[in-house]
Each structure stands twice: as structure tokens, then as C-alpha cells.
């Protein structure tokens, strides 16, 4: 198909810089010279997608191969979508501006359940039938990976294969397999690649009560369970020339992933299962990566990314060495995800020499009892003393994250959040807080996976109460959006219809407040005669076959020990 000409489109869209494809370090390969062409799609806006490290890693690995190329696609803005539809232009990749349908493989990253309508929209804009069964061998294979692949069942009818766990090693095996078999014929071979789940080889039978009765394997040689992949961080590929955007994006700096997984095992947190086990890159390797990629990008800020940076064993040495090498070049270091303790604060003080950034802590719950129950062990006393140290070190604004609707949560736990912040305000009048309140969503592969989510009415009441009473600037997550997140993170294949219906009725960018339409979603559930409460409010029996029971993310820390603490 012919290439798309930007001049016909860009004068009519906002933020045209999203669609240029000529970022620094973008790879433009000769289309005819390779055997396997992969479009890597991030189903949300450019500014988020460009900030995602996983896609940059895959982009780099595929483009290093001589036999394949990777190009990028982000969810087009609504104005762009309108123009494409009106003029009958198929959605195209940024680099070669070829229609999506020209690629062999389309890879989606599943970062968030509320991006699913964007996945359908991208396929549709690319002229690709939504359902796997409607696509013959002339269409690209649709593959998806990322955190939400830990329960991909709501997408099972749309996606040909899911990748569980780290993508670094398996991506090469997927390209090799595709190259050998090509088209749909590759699926049977892919189903045997460790970590690859091809849902069409499995059939789900439901019982009368709506729960899963059994999972049938439809062909010989297809594995009963699929275990997620774990890459060796030290040996695996890391992009030394990452893409540098030409417009501002949400993480506009060099991402240096120092550690994957988290040494802590907070019971509410899915990251433990999805990104674990906790692995580190050596200090020597990180310094090599930093040196090469600062030169290749020109960035003036390095972010030491991980789920808990201060747990990196050589964190002090790493920071000292980076500062010694690059501070004179006006390059700063940022440390996301600090734990609320004195050591983290000392590190934060050290990296603030060049540029002052915010300080963020996530105590998650207001009372010590509840924090202990969710595995977030920090005493009120330690927390208050850390914040006081931050104040004395010069910070005047601290961001805090709390959850509501946690298991066993009582009024006194909610009051404890207010008490904690008030106590801090009494001690430090000039210290201001930005507080984010998020509803707790019980997630697959966590010890809380069997629990119901708290009722929307209660969550709304708690959120409003906190917003009124907290002496701080309070930002509350949309509780209806969390409800939908609970449906799709814990849902099964029967949700495909609901998802497609909601997309048909115009749902897009559901994680954006200004685009989220809860009434359309509820209308869609009702038209499909599907009860969302079944997925959200039902307590699962510990023997129940869950939609994700055949997907192995390491042993789920059950239950017996934790549920003994819960009065359910």
C-alpha cells in the first residue's frame, strides 16, 4: 500500500509532533530488506507511550536483528481518528508511515485494563478485524504482553498470543518462530514457546453459577500451564541509544532501570508477581549504560527506576559515582519510588544538589494495624520522623498516596489518615501535602485475589469524607474507573462482548477523566446481559478455578496465613 503523506493531515490535528516518527535514535530500516516486520503499539497517547521502557527495550532488540524491523504506533488522538476515518486513511506506523495491516506482527503492551478499548480502536483503524477467528493468514498476528497479561482473558478473543513475564528473551524466539512458519500457522509453534499463551487452544466451560468449571485443551502438545518468563537483567539487552522525543513527554529523561521486581511483598500489590523475582543490574553495568546513553541522547537527567530504588544494594555507591561523573555536566539524578524512611531521605537530599524535585511517599493506609495487614510495615513514629526530616532538609511539599477500601478497613482506619496528616500539619505549619486517594482493587496473583472489592457507595463516601477533612490538596481517583478496572483485571472471556460493545458506542481513552463514560459502560453491560458485580463484589472460594489459574506467576502467597488475619 502507498505511504501516507503527513502534509495532508498534520495541519488539522492538535499536537502534530506526536506523529512525525523522526525522533532522535528512531530506526528507519529498509522495508524490503527484512523478513519480519513488527509494529509495537502502546494503546494510549504518545506522551505516555514514549515514556515506557519496555517498548524501548523491544524496539532495540528487534531492530538489532538483521532479519527484522520494529516500528511504533501510539493511540491516535480523537481529532486524528476523525480525520483518518473521514478520509479512509488506515492507521499507520510512525517510522515508515505504512498501514498497520502491512506488518507481520502487531505487539501491544497491556499496561492498564482501561486501555483495552484503545486496542480495539487501533485494530479497527488499521483495517484489521477485531476477533482472531475473523482474521486469516493475510492479517498480522496480534500479540500482547505486559502486566495485564497476568489475566488476559477479557482480551482472549481479540489477541492471538499473549506473552507472560519479561519480554527480553522471548521476543527473539517469537520472531524466529514466526519467520519459520509465518501467519496463523505460527500459532501452534508459538504455543510451545515457554511463556507464550495462545488462548484459542484452550476452551473455557462455565458452570451454572457462572464460575469456571473446567479448561479444555483443544489440541495435543499444548501445555496445561504457562509459566511467565524471567530474564537475566545483567545479560539481557538494554537500549544504549534510546529514543529521544522531540516534544515533551511524561518521563522526559534517561530511564536507568536499576532493579526489576521488589524485595517487599505488600499483599495488595500485583507488581510482586508481575515483575518478580527481585533482580538487580550490577553497578558496573549501570555505569556503562549511563555513559553510553547519555552520549547518545544528550539527556540532562537520569532517573534511577525501579519499584523501590533505595533497596538497590549498592544505591549509595551508584549515586556517588554518577554524581562524581556527571554533576559537572549539569546532569541531575532523580529517584522515584522512595520508601518513607530516613535512609531514603538521605539519598534524596544527596541527589537534590543539582535540581529540586518533589518528594513522594506511599504509606497506603492510615493506621499501623492496617499497614501491617497489607504488608506495608512502617510505624506512625517512623513515618512522622521521616517527614520531619524532609521538612528540616528544606522540602515544603510532600506527595502522599493512600488507599481506601482495603480489607478489614474500619472508620477508625480512615480517621487515622486524617489524624496522621493533621499531626504533621501541627508540627510543620508550612509543610503542604498533595494527597492521592485510590480505591483498592484486589488483583490476580496477589494474596487478596479472592476478595471482593468494596462497594462503590462506600468508596465514594470515604473519598468525599477524606477530601473534606484532610488539611491538604486531595486528588481522588475516579471510583467508577476503579470499578471497571476490577471487572477487567479479574474478568473472563465472556467480557469480550461487553468490551466490543462499549468501544462501538464510543468508549476510548477510558483512563482519562475527560473521556471516561461510565454510563456507556453500564449500558454495554446491560445490553450484553452481563452482571459486572459478579466480577467485582463476589468473594471467590479458595478452591475456585480462576480465569488466570493456568497462568503461573510464581506461588501465590496464600491465603491461610493472611486470611487468618482477615475477618471475612
Amino acid at each position, binding site marked *: 500500500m502507498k505511504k501516507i503523506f503527513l502534509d495532508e493531515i498534520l495541519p488539522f490535528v492538535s499536537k502534530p*509532533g506526536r506523529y*512525525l516518527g523522526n525522533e532522535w535514535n528512531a530506526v528507519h530500516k529498509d522495508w524490503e530488506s527484512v523478513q519480519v516486520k513488527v509494529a509495537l503499539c502502546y494503546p494510549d497517547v504518545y506522551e505516555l507511550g514514549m515514556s515506557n521502557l519496555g517498548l524501548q527495550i523491544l524496539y532495540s532488540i528487534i531492530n538489532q536483528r538483521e532479519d527484522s524491523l520494529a516500528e511504533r504506533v501510539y493511540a491516535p488522538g480523537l481529532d486524528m481518528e476523525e480525520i483518518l476515518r473521514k478520509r479512509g486513511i488506515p492507521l499507520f506506523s510512525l517510522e515508515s508511515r505504512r498501514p498497520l495491516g502491512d506488518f507481520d506482527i502487531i505487539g501491544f503492551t497491556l499496561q492498564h485494563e482501561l486501555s483495552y478499548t484503545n486496542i480495539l480502536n487501533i485494530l479497527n483503524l488499521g483495517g484489521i478485524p477485531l476477533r482472531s477467528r475473523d482474521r486469516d493468514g493475510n492479517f498480522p498476528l496480534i500479540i500482547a504482553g505486559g502486566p495485564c497479561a497476568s489475566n488476559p482473558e477479557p482480551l482472549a478473543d481479540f489477541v492471538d498470543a499473549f506473552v507472560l513475564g519479561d519480554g527480553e528473551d522471548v521476543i527473539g524466539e517469537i520472531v524466529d518462530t514466526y519467520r519459520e512458519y509465518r501467519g496463523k500457522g505460527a500459532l501452534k509453534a508459538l504455543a510451545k514457546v515457554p511463556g507464550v499463551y495462545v488462548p484459542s487452544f484452550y476452551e473455557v466451560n462455565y458452570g451454572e453459577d457462572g464460575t469456571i468449571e473446567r479448561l479444555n485443551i483443544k489440541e495435543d502438545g499444548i501445555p496445561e500451564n504457562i509459566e511467565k518468563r524471567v530474564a537475566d537483567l545483567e545479560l539481557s539487552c538494554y537500549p544504549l541509544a534510546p529514543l529521544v522525543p522531540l*516534544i515533551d513527554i511524561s518521563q522526559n529523561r534517561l530511564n536507568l532501570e536499576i532493579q526489576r521486581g521488589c524485595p517487599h511483598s505488600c499483599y495488595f500489590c500485583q507488581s510482586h508477581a508481575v515483575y518478580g523475582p527481585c533482580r538487580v543490574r550490577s553497578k558496573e553495568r549501570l555505569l556503562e549504560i549511563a555513559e553510553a546513553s547519555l552520549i547518545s541522547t544528550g*539527556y540532562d537527567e537520569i532517573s534511577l527506576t525501579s519499584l523501590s530504588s533505595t533497596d538497590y544494594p549498592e544505591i549509595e555507591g551508584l549515586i556517588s559515582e554518577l554524581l562524581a561523573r556527571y554533576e559537572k555536566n549539569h546532569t541531575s539524578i532523580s529517584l522515584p519510588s522512595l520508601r518513607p524512611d530516613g535512609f531514603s531521605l538521605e539519598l534524596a537530599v544527596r541527589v537534590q544538589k*543539582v535540581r529540586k524535585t518533589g518528594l513522594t511517599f506511599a504509606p497506603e493506609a492510615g493506621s499501623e494495624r492496617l499497614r501491617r495487614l497489607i504488608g506495608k510495615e512502617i510505624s506512625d513514629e517512623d513515618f512522622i520522623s521521616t517527614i520531619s526530616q524532609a521538612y528540616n532538609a528544606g522540602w515544603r511539599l510532600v506527595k502522599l498516596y493512600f488507599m481506601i477500601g482495603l480489607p478489614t478497613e474500619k472508620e477508625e482506619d480512615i480517621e487515622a489518615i486524617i489524624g496522621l496528616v493533621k499531626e504533621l500539619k501541627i508540627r510543620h505549619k508550612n509543610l503542604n501535602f498533595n494527597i492521592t486517594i485510590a480505591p483498592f482493587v484486589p488483583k490476580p496473583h496477589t494474596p487478596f485475589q479472592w476478595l471482593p472489592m468494596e462497594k462503590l457507595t462506600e468508596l465514594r463516601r470515604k473519598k468525599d469524607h477524606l477530601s473534606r477533612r484532610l488539611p491538604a490538596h486531595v486528588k481522588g481517583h475516579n471510583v467508577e474507573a476503579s470499578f471497571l478496572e476490577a471487572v477487567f483485571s479479574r474478568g473472563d472471556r465472556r467480557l469480550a462482548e461487553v468490551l466490543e460493545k462499549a468501544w462501538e458506542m464510543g468508549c476510548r481513552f477510558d483512563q482519562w477523566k475527560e473521556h471516561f463514560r461510565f454510563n456507556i459502560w453500564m449500558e454495554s453491560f446491560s445490553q450484553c446481559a452481563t452482571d459486572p458485580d459478579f466480577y467485582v463484589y463476589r468473594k471467590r472460594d479458595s478452591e475456585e478455578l480462576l480465569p488466570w489459574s493456568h497462568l503461573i506467576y510464581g506461588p501465590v502467597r496464600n491465603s491461610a496465613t493472611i486470611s487468618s488475619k482477615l475477618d471475612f
Partner: protein
Amino acid sequence: MDTIERIKIEYSKKGPIRYIGHLDLMHTLFRALKRAELPVSYTQGFNPRIKCSFSPALPLGFESEAEYMELYLEKKIDITSSIDNLQKNLPEGLTVHNIDRLSLFGKSMNAKIRAVAYRVNLSRFYGNLSDSAKREDLEEKARIFLDRDEISIVDKKGKRVNVRPLILDIQVERNGSIRLLLKTMRGLNINPRIIVRALLGVKDEELAFVEFTREKFLFY
């Protein structure tokens, strides 16, 4: 380290990169300078920044053959090799034409702008201008336009402003372009879209296929 030199980097902005706005372009150039390892000076203080200034913001979507950046350095550089080195580190569409040494304490270039010349390609909007009837029609329009004492437009705040004194010249070219020479007053530059809109009597959205190129700055 001390600042010992001020230079002027002249460059053009063409092709798709014209859809990158002023602020984003600044960051893109800062990163290119860093990749090229030019010995740039930084400001003092808590948030050190590269000591520099840019030619006036180019509207989004405009090409330019006349952009410049004034930059302070802490070391002497070799001009020829620096041009090559910087060029190798610039994204597609940005081309360095020249680097000049300026006197360290002189007036900034932006304070010396007298007028700005633009080329406006109307061929995708107005049809083929090699058709002489069409060209004569446009020439006539320009003549009438320039004969007026007052051309009032409504600015962003809803105030009526007479822009006639800002128009120094309009010429219709054979190749389908018009050339505008617009005066800079008290450091302020008028967007040529406003003038073209008034000249042709059309709305802004109708100008989507009109191609604007900044050709030249005229200095005092």
C-alpha cells in the same frame, strides 16, 4: 568556568520537524548541543541553565531558512569542525548553515531586528499561479491592499489594531508565492498568517494548505 565567547548559530528548519513548537525545539537543540559536547556556559544559581537566546518563536508549521541561536561558551571552538559536529547531532530537518563569533558584550540579535521576510506558497491553496489571469488577480489584490491607510484586524484580546504600518512590502512571484516584508516594532513580530488572511479575505482554517517560510531577518 567563565564565559569567554558568544557565538551565533544559524540554521534552517524544514520538513516534518516544522510541526515541533518553540519550547520543544529549544530542548531538542539543548540535547543536540550536549551530544555534540560544545563547551556551553551555564547560568549561576540553583537551577543552572544553558546561557543562550533564540530567534523569535516561529509559528507551528512554518518552515524557516533564517533561524539563529546565540550561545555563550566557556572555551574557544573551531568553527568549521563545530558546524560539522553539531550537524551530525541534529535531527532530520534542522540544518546548520553557519556559526559566527559575536562580540561578548554586544546587544542581543533579537533587539536588533528591523523586519522579517516571509515567503508564502499559495499554490496548494490558490491553484496554479502560472495562470496569468490568476496572478494578475492576486497582484491587483496586493496593490489595493497596500494602497489602504488602515488595515484593521481584531487581535486575540478582541481589540481592533491597524496592522498597515507593519507591512513594508508585498510581492507576487511567478512561481506561486508571495513575499511579505513585515516590520518589527518594539521587538514585537506580527504573525504573517494574519496579514495573508486579511489580504485574501479568508478564515484561518482555510489557510491549512498555505505554506509559510521565514526567509530572512533584517537587522539594524
